């Protein structure tokens, strides 16, 4: 165990910091879920990142990455969050689908999909859920029928993040007549394919963060299937592992938020409830604990381990710490907590509302606790 950065790691941090200092937009962009303009501004930012080869530093160089290890990725994420750089509009691609593509994709699929994913030229939506298949994902009903070199897709997806403005989506489709976990395939479909209808859904902050997608005889090449036919559930579980694990929620964002909370306390603590200091300290502790845990996981992965059901503990921990942190901020703000922020100020209330999605999406925390109980602890189903 050696908890010091190597000189190379320190040099890498300095390189990231310098590049971000020179390139991060001075004015915050409109949120990518708030409007088409905000979305496209974020796409341009992805293109800027690409000029420095920062799209996804852990990917192989030939796909637009830098071939770096997970510790370096964490350092990149830390500097990225520290610099207040824009949110990653491509997160469904780079954090969720990308690692799965690298593991399960053919050479040709990797060459086709990864570079535009890393550069933001092609922005991905996820299309996991259906109206009757939320926590019970194996209940999806959308179908894929093979027709020569193509699949014909039909069905109704919902709660698709980014789908209102994105270019392409991935989702599970089943062979007609198949049931539950069997007969599912993971298939990509461009959102401008004939037969695709996208209806935006507003989140409780008013942003169009979701959409429902209707598919009517949507024809996509068989090339767009990831992995073997019928292997979709297995691949999907691997993706979910990344989602719940270290990829979707890098710790740096919570450490930045905890630091902002400490600053808020320094400014407003004198006129707030003194008992809240304990919560401010707790928010810092939680963010630190999450970071240490992810460093430990990254070290273990570098040493050859793999992520198991303990990824579900991550999901629970970050979603709960996020809510606690923002509730503490609102309590400090007291009678002003309800107010939307003035331009340029930290938007505590909007971030709080966003935090409430944490225990719901990417597999509800109830499902995560089932997984921990059954697969980590070995309790009976």
């Amino acid at each position, binding site marked *: 165990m050696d908890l010091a950065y190597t000189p190379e790691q320190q040099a890498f941090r300095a390189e990231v910091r310098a590049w971000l200092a020179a390139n991060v937009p001075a004015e915050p962009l409109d949120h990518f879920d708030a409007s088409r303009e905000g979305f496209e501004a974020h796409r341009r930012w992805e293109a800027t990142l690409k000029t420095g080869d920062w799209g996804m530093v852990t990917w192989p160089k030939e796909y637009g990455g830098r071939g770096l290890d997970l510790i370096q990725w964490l350092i990149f994420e830390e500097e990225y969050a520290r610099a207040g750089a824009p949110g990653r509009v491509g997160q469904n691609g780079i954090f969720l689908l990308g690692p799965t593509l690298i593991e399960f994709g053919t050479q040709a699929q990797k060459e086709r999909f990864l570079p535009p994913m890393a550069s933001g030229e092609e922005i991905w939506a996820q299309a996991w859920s259906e109206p009757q298949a939320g926590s019970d994902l194996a209940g999806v009903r959308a179908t894929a029928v093979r027709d020569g070199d193509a699949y014909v897709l039909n069905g109704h997806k919902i709660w698709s993040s980014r789908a209102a403005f994105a270019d392409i989506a991935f989702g599970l489709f089943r062979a007609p007549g198949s049931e539950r976990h069997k007969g599912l395939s993971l298939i990509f479909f461009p959102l401008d394919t004939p037969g695709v209808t996208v209806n935006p859904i507003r*989140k409780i902050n008013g942003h169009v963060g*979701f959409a429902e997608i209707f598919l009517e005889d949507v024809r996509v090449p068989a090339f767009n299937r990831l992995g073997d036919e019928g292997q979709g559930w297995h691949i999907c579980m691997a993706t979910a592992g990344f989602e719940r694990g270290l990829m979707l929620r890098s710790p740096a964002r919570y450490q930045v938020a905890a630091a902002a909370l400490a600053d808020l306390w320094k400014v407003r603590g004198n006129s707030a409830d003194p008992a809240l200091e304990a919560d401010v300290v707790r928010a810092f502790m939680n963010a630190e604990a999450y970071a240490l845990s992810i460093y430990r996981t990254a070290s273990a992965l570098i040493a050859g381990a793999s992520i198991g059901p303990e990824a579900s503990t991550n999901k629970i921990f970050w979603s709960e710490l996020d809510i606690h942190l923002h509730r503490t901020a609102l309590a400090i703000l007291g009678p002003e907590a309800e107010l939307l922020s003035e331009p340029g100020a930290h938007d505590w209330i909007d971030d709080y509302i966003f935090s409430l999605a944490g225990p719901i*999406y990417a597999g509800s925390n*109830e499902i995560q606790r089932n997984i921990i109980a059954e697969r980590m602890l070995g309790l009976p189903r």
Partner: protein
Amino acid sequence: MDFTLTEEQRMFADTARALFADTVTPDHWRRMMAAGETRDPARWAAIVESGFTQILLPEDAGGLALAEIDFALIAEAAGYVALPDPLVESAGIAAPMLASLAPDHAALADPAASIAIQHPANPLVADADSAAAIVLHRDGQAFVATPDQVRLVRRESIDPFRSVFAVEWDEATPLGSADWDLALDRGAVFAAAQGLGLAQRAIDMAVAYAKERQQFGKPIGTYQSVKHMLASAQVGIEFARPVVHAAAAQIGHRDVFSRARVSHAKIVALEAADQAARASIQVHGAMGYSWEVDVHLLLKRALALTGQWGTPAVHRARIGERLFTRPTGPDTTFAREYDHA
């Protein structure tokens, strides 16, 4: 000693519930949000018609001269529908204060007029733009003005039905010293009553959804995690309601005991509302996180009311004063200051 409501009180509450059930449906909510409105003239007319704006006014001001416990039941019903219109602040807090200071004020003569109130506990004034009169505060003194006599700066609340303003003013009609503590007590206890309504609505919506929504081949309401989350929220309501009702019944004592009870009611009823609203969002899943399912309105109203009419810290301090400076123990549950003077 009788902790039951009277027949008349129950009838008033039933009337309010029925009126609000008809006039504040989810369709109304959505139309108003789409239009960016925070009041509905037809609904307000029905509220005025029912006499709810005059419950706390003295008889010589044309009022019903009823007590805070009566109005609290109406506030609870208003909470159940996250009532957009300014009934609670106007008829529950502002109008009685104005009546105590200027019983002949023109705004009191019109039962349809709404009155806004600025209070040191609140940084902003709700519904100041549409008020016939705004009761103002400066250095412990009360003043009154019309909206066009002051400068109103609108601020955006997370609650789409809360219309709040910074009020800047130089001159207004002086009304003399006022009992701002009583206004705070009324504001707190009626916020608490609304909290009870918000909480119960959130649970009722979640129960309805959990009975219908199927996952893994059965309604999600059959799962213990859903059951226990909602049961815990219901426990919160059950042990807030008696406190709110006692606080409303005792508000007139105006001593350290009654103020502690009001504070207790404010804290736990809004906690119950927050807990129930968050549980309801979680039970609704992604549906609960969307704008289309109205449970977010309950969460946002609870959040706003938590900070108004005294924060939890302010109210906890008032309870602490009672706890640490007055007799405690099982014989003091219904104590009054003079009992121990």
